[in-house]
C-alpha cells in the first residue's frame, strides 16, 4: 500500500507510486539516497512536480528546501513537464567546434522555442547538453532518443518535422 501521506500530497495511488515507494524502502529511507530516489521518481513520472517532491521529502525526512535545492542543482532533473517530443543538441567541445550552435539556432527559429524551454503548445522541448560522448560523430543531436551523428540543421529539422507530422495523423 502506498504511503498515506502520498494522497495528502496530491499524488494518485497508482503503480508508479508503489514503485517509487518500493525504491525508497530498498534504500531503507536513507537520506543519502535522495539522488537515487529522485532518479527513480523522474523515470516513473517524467519530471518532478511539487507534490512529488513534498512526498519524497516526507518519506526521507528531509527538509523540503534541501530536496528542492538538490533537485535544482543537477541539470538532469526536470521540474517542469517537458514537451511531447524532445530534441537535445550536444554542446560538447567537439560538437561546438563542428557547428552545434547552428543546430540549436535552426531549431529555435523554426519552432519558436528557446533552449531549455518548450513550445507554447507543449509539443516540443529543446535542450542542450554537455557532451553525450559521441564526439567522433560530432555534431550530434538527439531527437526523441534517437541520436543523429554528423548532424546538419536540415537533417535535424527534417527529422523533427517528420515526427510532428506523424503525430498529427
Amino acid at each position, binding site marked *: 500500500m502506498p504511503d498515506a501521506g502520498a494522497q495528502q500530497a496530491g499524488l494518485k495511488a497508482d503503480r508508479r507510486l508503489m514503485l517509487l515507494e518500493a525504491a525508497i524502502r530498498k534504500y531503507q529511507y*536513507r*537520506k*543519502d*539516497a*535522495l*539522488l*537515487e530516489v*529522485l*532518479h527513480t521518481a523522474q523515470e516513473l513520472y517524467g519530471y518532478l512536480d511539487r507534490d512529488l517532491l513534498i512526498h519524497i521529502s516526507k518519506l526521507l525526512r528531509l527538509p523540503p528546501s*534541501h530536496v528542492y*535545492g*538538490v533537485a535544482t*542543482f*543537477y*541539470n*538532469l*532533473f526536470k521540474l517542469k513537464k517537458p514537451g511531447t517530443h524532445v530534441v537535445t543538441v550536444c*554542446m*560538447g*567541445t*567537439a*560538437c*561546438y*567546434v*563542428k557547428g552545434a550552435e547552428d543546430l540549436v539556432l535552426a531549431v529555435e527559429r523554426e519552432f519558436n522555442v528557446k533552449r531549455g524551454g518548450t513550445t507554447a503548445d507543449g509539443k516540443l522541448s529543446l535542450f542542450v*547538453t*554537455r*557532451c*553525450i*560522448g*559521441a*564526439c*567522433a*560523430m*560530432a555534431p*550530434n543531436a538527439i531527437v526523441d532518443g*534517437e*541520436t*543523429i*551523428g554528423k548532424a546538419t540543421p536540415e537533417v535535424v529539422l527534417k527529422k523533427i518535422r517528420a515526427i510532428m507530422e506523424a503525430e498529427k495523423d
Partner: protein
Amino acid sequence: MKPDELRSLAQKEAEARKSYRYRINVCCSSGCMPFGALKVLSAFKDAVKEFGVEGECYVARTGCIGTCSIAPAVLIEPGDYLYQNVTPDRAKEIVKEHIVNGRPVKSMLYGNEAYFKKQLRIVLRNAGKIDPLRIEDYIAVGGYYALLKALTRMTPEGVIEEVALSGLKGRGGAGFLTGLKWRYVARATGSPKYVIANLDEGDPGVFANRTLAEADPHAIIEGMAIAAYAVGASKGYIYVRSEYPLAVETLKKAIEAARSMGLLGEKIFETAFSFDIELRLGAGAFVAGEETAILASIEGRRAMPRPRPPYPAQSGLWGKPTLINNVETLANIPVILLKGSEWFASIGAKNCTGTKCFSLTGKVNNPGLIEVPMGITLREVVFEIGGGVPPGRRFKAVQVGGPSGGFLPEQLLDLPIDYESLTKAGAIMGSGGIVVLDDTSCMVDTAKFFTEFCVDESCGKCVPCRVGLYKLYKILDGFTRGEGSLEDLQKVEELCEFIKEASLCGLGQTAPNPTLTTLRYFRDEYVAHILEKKCSAGKCFKNGGGVGGE
C-alpha cells in the same frame, strides 16, 4: 568463489575460445550504437548460422574498439582485421568472404595502420576484444587473477608498495601519486573506510572513462577491490554520470555478475576480505567530478566542493577515510599487480609512467579513443595517430584537458605529454581530452565557449568562480561583438589571476586556462578583434556586421 574455481573457470573459457577459429567482435559501445551496431550484431549472428559456420566462428558483442570515426566497427580475430562502417548487408558479405572463404574483404577494411602504431593498450587491453557483459570473458583473459594474488599472496602494505613503486599517478587530472594516496587512506584512523571510483567525466569532448566502463567494467571492479583491500575498506561506490546509460547498465550488470560469482561480497576467495560496490548516479553536474563534491553528491546533497584539508583520505564520505580514484587509475591496478611495478615503470616517461587514454576529437581526420604511452609528443598524437587536420585546412591549436585545459599552438606540439610539461605550458592533463582546432575556429570565441561552460557548471559557492567567471565571460563576449579595448586585456589577466588563485576548488582554479593560454599564444587574435573588429575565422561579429555589435 574459491581460488581454484577461478582457475578452472579461466581454463574452461580459454578452451572454449580455442574451439573457435574466428572471433567476430562487434563494437556495441555508445559510439557505434547510434549507427546501428546492434543490427549489425544480429546480422552477423544470422549470417554465421546461414553459412553454417557457427561452430567455428564466435560472434561477440564487445565494447569500444577505439575507432569511433568508422562506426559501426567490427574486429575479426585472429589477425585483428578491422572493418569499417559495417552494415547488415556488409556483415553477410564479410562472413561469406572472410570466414567461409578465408579472404578478408580488403575494400571494407580500415586501412589506417598509423592509427594503432603508436598506441599502447594497457588500460584498454580488453576493450573491443571481450564481451563486457560476460564476466567469463574477462576471467578468460586473466581477469581477477590480480585480486586473487593480492588477497592470497600479498599484504595490504605490499599492494600499496607495489602500486607506489610503479609510479602510477592519478588519471583524474591532478596527477597525484596513487600509491601515496592509498597509503594516506590506509593509515587514516576511522572505520569503516570507503573506496570511490570516479566516473563522472563531464568534460565536453572527453569520453575515455565511459568507453572503458562500457568495454571492460570488470577491470574497474577488480581495481576497486584491490584498492579496498590495500586501504582496508569494505564498501565501494562507483559514481557514474547518468548521461552514460550504457555504461551504467554495463556496470550494473558487471557488479551483479561479480557478486553472484562471489568476487564481491563476503569473504572473497575464502579470505577475511569482504567488499561490495554500489553504483551511484550523477545527475548532470560537472563539478560533481571534484573530489569533495563527489562526496556531497554520494551523500545526497548538492555537489558543492568544500575546502581541503581535511582531505577525503582523512575525512571523506560521512566523515570517514575515503579513497577516491579515477576509473582509469583503477583499471591499471590489476595489470600492475600481475606484471609488476618494474614493468609498469618502464613504460612511458621517467617521472610519468604508464599510459594515458585520450579521446581525440575536433578537426582531426581520425577521431577516436586512443591510449598512448606517457611522454609521447602532441605532434605524434595529432598528426600520426590523428592523421592531422582535414584536407585544405591549417592546424591552429590543440586543447588538452577539457574545459579547464589550455590551448597549445603549433610551436608547442613537440611537448611531451606528461603532467609537468602540460601544466608548465598552461594546459592540464585533465581526464584526457584532446581537441584539435583548425583555422575555422576563432580562439576568442573558443575561449568564450569554455568560459561559458564553466559559468554554467560552477556550483556557485565561492565568489571568484561564481561571479568572476561570469564577468570574464561577459568581457570575452564583448570582444566577439566588437566591444572592449586593449585595457580590457589587462583586466582579463588580473581577473583570471584572481579566479585561478582564490577559487575554492579545481574547477575555478583551472577555469581561466583557456582564456589565459589563448591570450598567451594567440594574443594577436584578441588584438585583431578589439582594434580591427576582425575575426579571421569568421565566427564573430555576426550581429551588427563588425562594429558595435548589438
